[in-house]
Structure formats: C-alpha cells, structure tokens
C-alpha cells in the first residue's frame, strides 16, 4: 500500500483520451461552442489585460506644491489622454508664461495624487488569446473562461523541456534511438516540423534546426553545456516553458548522452509525418508538470471511450510486481525493467543509507536491488 508514496510516473500511451483545459488568466469571451471541432490554432477564448502604467511627476514638472497637483490638472481621473497632450498646466506672470506636463503615452488618467504629486496613466488594454493547442472537439465550455478540448491521441511525456506550446508534423531524423541528432541530419525540409532524434542533440543541431525553421526537437538527452548555449543562460530550477526561444526542446531521458527508450522511439516513429502538439513546460514538484507530445488520432473517435480513457489507476495502484519501470539514478541509470519483488523491511544500500528498496528484473536479464525512490513507473 505504501509503495505508491514514492513513485513518480511518466506516460507513454499509443492511444488515450487527451483533454486540455484552455483557460484565460482573467475572464473574457469564449469563442467556441460545445461540440465544435477545432484545429490546434483555433482561437478558443479572448480577453483584454490591463495596459502598462506610466507615472508622471506632475508637481515636479510644474514646480508646484504636491498638494496643489489636482488644481492644475487639465484632465481628471478617469478621463482619456493622448500621447503628448498637455494634461496639466500652470500659468504665471498674469498668464504670459505657461508650463505644461505632457502625457507620455495615450491612456486613461487613473490617479491624481495630492500627496505625492504624481499622476498615473494607464495605457490601453492589450488583447490576449488562447488557442485550442490540440486538434479535437470542444467538449465543454467554461463560461467567460475558456473551453475543454478533447481528442483521442498518442501521448508521451518527456522528462524535461524548454519552450512553450508548438504545433507541427513529426519527422524522425535518426535511424535508431541510440544515434545522436547532429546538424547533418537537419535540412531545409525540416521547416515547420517537430524533429525526433535519438540519444543526444548537439547545440550545432539546435542552431541548424532554428535556422531551417523547425518547430521543435524531441530527443533522449542533452549536455548541460549545450542547453546553456541554446538558452544563453544556465538553468537553476526546472521551472520552464516561458523561455523566449524559437523552438521547443523536449528530452525524454535526462542530461548527458542517453539513448531514447526503444518503446518511446518506436511510438514516435509510428506517427512519423503526423500532426503533433508539443509543450516543453516543465515544473518539477511533487505532482509534476512534465513536457508532453500529443499526437491527435481522430481515427480512434469511434472507439469505445472506456478503452481509451485514462482512469489514472496506474499511478494510484503504485508499484506492484510486474510494473514496468525505468531506473533513474546511478548505478543503473536509464535501465528499463519490471518490478520483481517489493520487500517491506528497510535495506542498507552501498551508500549505507537504510531505505525501502525493490528488486527489479532488467530488460537485459539482470536482477538488481534499487531504492524505490530511484525508479519511475512507465505507463503504457
């Protein structure tokens, strides 16, 4: 029963129901109706967010006391101003001399302060849109907020990514999951595509992919140096997805040269050329957000829902004998296998820590003992 407490899991499913809630950060207009069929770039909802503000030191500009500010304003709170329009004025020498405070931007006068002598101007609202992200059907609308889009799809989670949502056709670029993706494998035909490589992607390859206009890269591993060169800075915490980068990168195994899992590679290969939506956003906390590859499969729409629906039972059941796992720490990092035993008593491992362990039978036939904390379950 307690096994579940330790084990993170990654999904790798050939057929499942993927449901995405597409919501505005603040309330707005929903542009789709329940039942609408949408493309990945269909706009689902739209709103406007508050514009930037500018603070103008009116008292300072006019040379008046702070408490006099509102007396010299030509525009009152709530009124609109145009850029470079005089919004405050003082006359001196019987009106012969005039001094103005001009609006630095167009917007609305939000506050006139007689305590600080400052005037705050709010710029116009900025539109904000949310698209469907995946091809599918709007199965529910959320009034003033957005919609839930659903599709049968293949669904694969990576372990780490950078870059946000991108859409494009999948394109396999290496012959096997153990080959590195280098600049040689990237040509002009990769424009607009999501490239799939094997064990590693080099920075040269990333740069070439950007040059030819690829949308994304999915690969087993990357050296931290190459990631740093790509981003232009070092990552300190794995909270990603907001980077201002031209393509999204997803790694499926980890840092360093790491062959992509055979099954992940085969699954991606099966859908070579198909439309996919990817998101590199990663947020590593308990209850993690991992990067994802969604390959909509509308041809499965007629299949029974029950056969496809992800009931979340796999992770809930936790580790059991027979559960497929990947070892995620030395000395067996990257090895795949199944749980063979789950001994209850704590066991002392090489580091001399007393931990809860499991015995695993690896794909290469070895039987090994590893801390339960050092495996992840693979949901297929």
């Amino acid at each position: 029963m307690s096994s579940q407490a330790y084990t993170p899991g990654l999904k790798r499913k050939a057929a499942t129901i993927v449901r995405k809630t597409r919501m505005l950060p603040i309330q707005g207009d929903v542009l789709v109706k329940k039942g609408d069929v949408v493309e990945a770039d269909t706009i689902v909802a739209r709103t406007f967010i508050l514009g930037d503000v500018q603070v103008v030191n009116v008292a300072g500009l006019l040379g008046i006391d702070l408490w006099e500010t509102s007396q010299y304003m030509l525009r009152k709170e709530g009124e609109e101003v145009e850029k470079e329009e005089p919004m405050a004025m003082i006359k001196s020498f019987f009106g012969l001399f005039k001094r103005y405070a001009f609006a630095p931007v167009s917007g609305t006068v939000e506050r006139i302060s007689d305590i600080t002598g400052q005037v705050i101007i709010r710029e116009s609202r900025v539109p904000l849109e949310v698209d469907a992200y995946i091809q599918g059907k709007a199965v529910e609308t959320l009034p003033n907020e957005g919609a839930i889009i659903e599709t049968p799809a293949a669904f694969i989670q990576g372990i780490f990514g950078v870059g946000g949502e991108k859409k494009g056709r999948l394109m396999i670029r290496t012959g096997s999951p153990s080959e590195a993706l280098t600049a040689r494998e990237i040509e002009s035909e990769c424009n607009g595509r999501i490239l799939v490589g094997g064990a590693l992607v080099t920075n040269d390859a990333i740069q070439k992919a950007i040059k030819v206009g690829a949308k994304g890269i999915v690969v087993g591993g990357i050296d931290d140096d190459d990631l740093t060169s790509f981003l232009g800075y070092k990552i300190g915490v794995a909270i990603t997805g907001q980077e201002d980068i031209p393509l999204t990168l997803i790694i499926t195994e980890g840092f360093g040269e790491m062959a992509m899992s055979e099954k992940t590679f085969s699954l991606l290969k099966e859908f070579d050329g198909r439309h996919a939506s990817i998101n590199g956003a990663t947020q590593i906390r308990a209850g993690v957000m991992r990067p994802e590859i969604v390959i909509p499969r509308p041809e499965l729409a007629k299949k029974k829902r029950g056969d496809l629906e992800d009931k979340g039972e796999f992770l809930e059941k936790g580790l059991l004998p027979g559960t497929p796992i990947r070892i995620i720490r030395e000395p067996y990092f990257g090895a795949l296998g199944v749980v063979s035993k789950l001994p209850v008593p704590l066991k002392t491992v090489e580091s001399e820590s007393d931990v809860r362990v499991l015995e695993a039978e690896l794909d290469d036939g070895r039987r090994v003992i590893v801390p339960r904390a050092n495996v992840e379950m693979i949901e297929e």
Partner: protein
Amino acid sequence: MTPPRTPSKSKMKPEEIKVILATDCGSTTSKARFFKKLGNEYRFVASGEAPTTVEAPFEDVTLGVRNEILEVEELTGHKILAPHGIMTPSKGEKEGVDLYVTTSSAGGGLQMMVAGVVKTMTAESAERAALGAGAIVMDVMAVDDGRRPYQKIGRIRYLRPDMILMAGGTDGGNVTHVVETAELIDAAKPRPRLGIDFELPIVFAGNKEARVPIEKILDKAYALKIVDNLRPVLEFENTGPARNVIHELFMEHVMSHAPGYDKLMKWTPIPIMPTPAGEGRMFQAIAKTYSANVIGVGLGGATTNVYSMYEDKFVRTVSANLGMSYSICNVLKEAGTKNIVRWVPFECLEEDLRNRLYNKMIRPTTIPQTVEDLVVEHAVAREALRLGFEHHKLLARPLRGVQRRRTIADIFEQEAFEETYIDMLYIDWVAGTGGLLSHAPRRAQSALMLIDGFQPEGVTSLAQDSVFMMPHLGVLSTVHPKASMEIFEKDCLVRIGVCIAPRGVGKEGEVMEVAIRMPDNSCLEEQVSFGSIKKIPLKEGEKAEVEILPFRGGDVGQGSGKARKVVIEGGVVGIILDARGRPLVLPDEDNERKQKLIEWFKALDAYPERLYEMCGR
C-alpha cells in the same frame, strides 16, 4: 471552495493528550511524525513520507498527507485515517490521535514582497520581519533602490506574491514616499498567486501618520491590515506585530486558497504554520535552553534557511534559490562547478558532475545509492551552506541609520560596522536540519558538512535533527510545549560532538595541543598538525575538561596563541580537533587536494572503505 474555518485551540487538556500526529507539507515531500506518551514522557515513535500533492495533476495537499500517514499506519499498526480526515481522539492503544498539527511550505511556501522607503533602513527591517515570519522574500522595493516607477510596477505585476509587507517612515516622519509606494502597488493591481478572485493581503507597518492616506488608496481593493510601525524610531526595530499579522493572514488568505488546504485546515485545530517558522522556533529553543549563541540551518530541497540567535537577536534568512533537489543547479550556478568539485576526492569531470546534478534537478526525489553519488551531494551541500551563510550575514548586521557618537577610531572601523555582528568565535552551537543532513548515513558526514560550510571557530557544539522533525516540534510547541521539548531533547536533537578549531592560519609543522581530562579521569594529550583534523570519542551525555593551546597565531577565544580551558559535552562523533585553519583553504594542486580530503574523511571515519579504495588510497 468552502470558507476557511477559524481554527481553535485543541479542546483537550495538555495532560490528556497521549497520541500526537504532526506533519510537514514540504515543497517536495510531506513528512509525518508520530509521537506517543510512553510512561511519563512524550517520545517519537514512527515516521512516514510521501510526495507532496499540491500541484497538478493532484492539486489536493491532503492526498500526500494521507499517503504519508498510511505509511505510519503500516509501520505501527496504529489506525489514524478516517474516511474524511483524521480520527480524533485516540481510542485504546491502536486507534486515533489526540492532537494533529502541521506546518507547510508546499507550493513554494509563503512568498512575499516587501517595500520600505530607504533600502538599508525600513526596507531592510521589513525584509527581516517577513523572513522572521517564515516567508520567502521575492523582492525588496525601496524609494532609493535605483529602479524607475514603471520598472517597479512591472515587477510587482510579474511576481504575483502571496502577500505584501509595506513599511516606511519612522512615526511622525516621511509620509510622501510611503504613499508613493502604495500608489505604485495599486497601479500594478497585483493579483495573488493563489485564488485569483481573492483580495491580496497587504500589511502596512510604517509611519502611523501615513495610515489614513494608505487606507484611502489600498483599503477597497486589498485585504489591508495595519499594524504598529516596525521601525517607529531609527534606533529600534519592532518586527513582532508585523510577523504576527503575517502568520494570521497566511492562514486566512493564503493557505485557505491553496489546493486542498481548506480540507487540511479542518483536520487540525491548530493554525498551519509556515515550515521555517516552526524550524526557527526550535533553533530559538536551543538558544534559550543552553543560553547560547546559535547558528541553525534548514537545508531543504528548494531552499536553505539560516537562523542566528546571537546575543538575543534572532535573524532568519532564506536563500530561496539554494537547495538540494529542485534548486541543486542553482547551487551549481552560484558556487560554480570548481567550488563543488573541490570537495570531491576522486576524479570527476566537470561536465559529468553538471549532468549528474541536472539529472538530480529533474528527478528531485531520487537518493544516492552509490558512495560517489553521496559524496557529490555532500559536496554540493557544503557549498549551499557556505552560500546560505554568506547571504545570512548580509542581514545579520547592525541597524542602519542609527545615529552614533563616533570617534576617529570608528571612522576607520566603518567597514566593520557595515559587516555582520556574528563573530564565529562566540557561536556556541551550530545545528542543522533538513533531509540531506538528517538522512546522512553517518553523523560524521553531517559534522563535516556543517564544519566545512560554516567554519566554526573556537569551541562549538554541533547538533542535528535526527529524522527531520524540527518544524513539527515547532508547531507543536505552540500548543504543547512540554511534549515538544521532551521529544526535542530525547529524540530530535542529536548531539554530534564538539568542534575545536582555532581562528587563523598556521604554518606547516605547527601543532595545536589539546589536553583532555576524560570522564574516567584519564588524561589524553593530543597534538594536531596544522592542516589536519582528528576525532576523539566522547559519548553523548559525557563531559570532559579540555585545555587547548592553538598553533602560533591561532585563536580559540582567548586571544592569539593563548590557551583556553573549557568543559565540553560529547556526542555521537565526539570531539573534533580541527587544525585545518580558518579560513579553511584547500590545496590548489589537484592530487594534494584529493589526498587531503581523503585524510580528513578517514580521520573522522566519515565514509565507507569503498570510497578510499575507489580513490586508490
């Protein structure tokens, strides 16, 4: 979401409480600690751990809490969980608990922004108040911080703090600048991180003359609380009222909007406390119990909290970017690869080390299975402690802006005035908590990490939290101080030993001489060469009288080169005679450095033989 219930104190009398459950919902892991009254005293019985489930896809903290409790149930056979919460009170020997308490730093803990007028005065005091309340300070804003108003507004909008603390102006002093800050905050229209429809709590603890205009600007759109000025006069800092109201608002406005906390708050009759606040209470307890100057550290997965209780001044800092799992690569980034590698005694390519740490960052719940992995994590920990303490010293310094009568000598000592008031020679205790320290397979490993990270000088007791329960005992102490202190003394505080380390650097061949009168009255005479370290066993609870004669130029608290006599208490490691010098400098030459590390590790019997075999030594 149901409105938060105002928790009330437990209805049972303290003496009736026999079974206690305490949990801490950490950023990575939720940890349950189960206590019972055995005979006349409260003792720790069992623990359970499970990943925290605040974030997607679970978004309900109670799932993780149930999982950790399940583990306790499995280990003890004691039934605790009810279908919708926790069984209270206890029935018989194997069912229910009489008291359930919890701390939380899940979902990033309490994230605050603070603002003041002058950066080094009221803004710094506000920062200390927020940190003291257990918050992570996302930004410190001040009128003189060099940023333009639009930059500040942009920053406030971007940060989305859980709460804002505004200070500024001594009572009767500046009003304009205080109001200016309020105007900027209002212009930014900040939204709280959790529960976007709720009002953002703002605490005003500044010039009382500014209260009316501040209310006018902020009262409508925010949950504004006004408390006593935290810097009523420049010479005095009064952070207590602000700290208390932050705790109240943390419960009412922040916790109640975090996923699942509405349920969790109903499970416990005691307000949920931020984890660092719980931890801080226990470090303060050490200082109070032993009338000592104490440095405490909570080395967590996401953050490093450093606490100092120095001559009755309590300061907490949090290095929100330094941690041993999520933020392990921030330690790498801030310390640099070379500074981490310098603590590793075997061949370790820098790029391999970086990839290894990046892999830990993306799989933060994994634990070292091999000795190499363990040594690498301990290397990172030393740097996290060092950097966390450097950060701490920037805030543990005298109040700025205080008028002082200055002499010519003071002018020359201006630099010293700007520096921390913490003098390591007068620190009596260094104590640590957090998963990595508590789970170190040998206590000598924790001892070395604390010594290398903090570099205590003179005579310093070392202690650590046995299985990470200081936050639990901290929140428990608010309702049952007796149980909290009994468990703290007997099951939580592990006395590692005493570190004797002269300040200063000696020359090769010079020695520190130590005469020790052991509990059986035998006398040991030890000589430790400069650059070496040695361990003398002295068990927990045993006392010995030592006379220390440092190497030439070394100071153990009596002045340069002077002897010191002191009575010390032992620990699980014993007496650590550290003649490596302060500051501690590792040899530049690679082989010599590795050899020294192995020599030190062996001297303390810190790691298994396999490590030395691997290093070929």
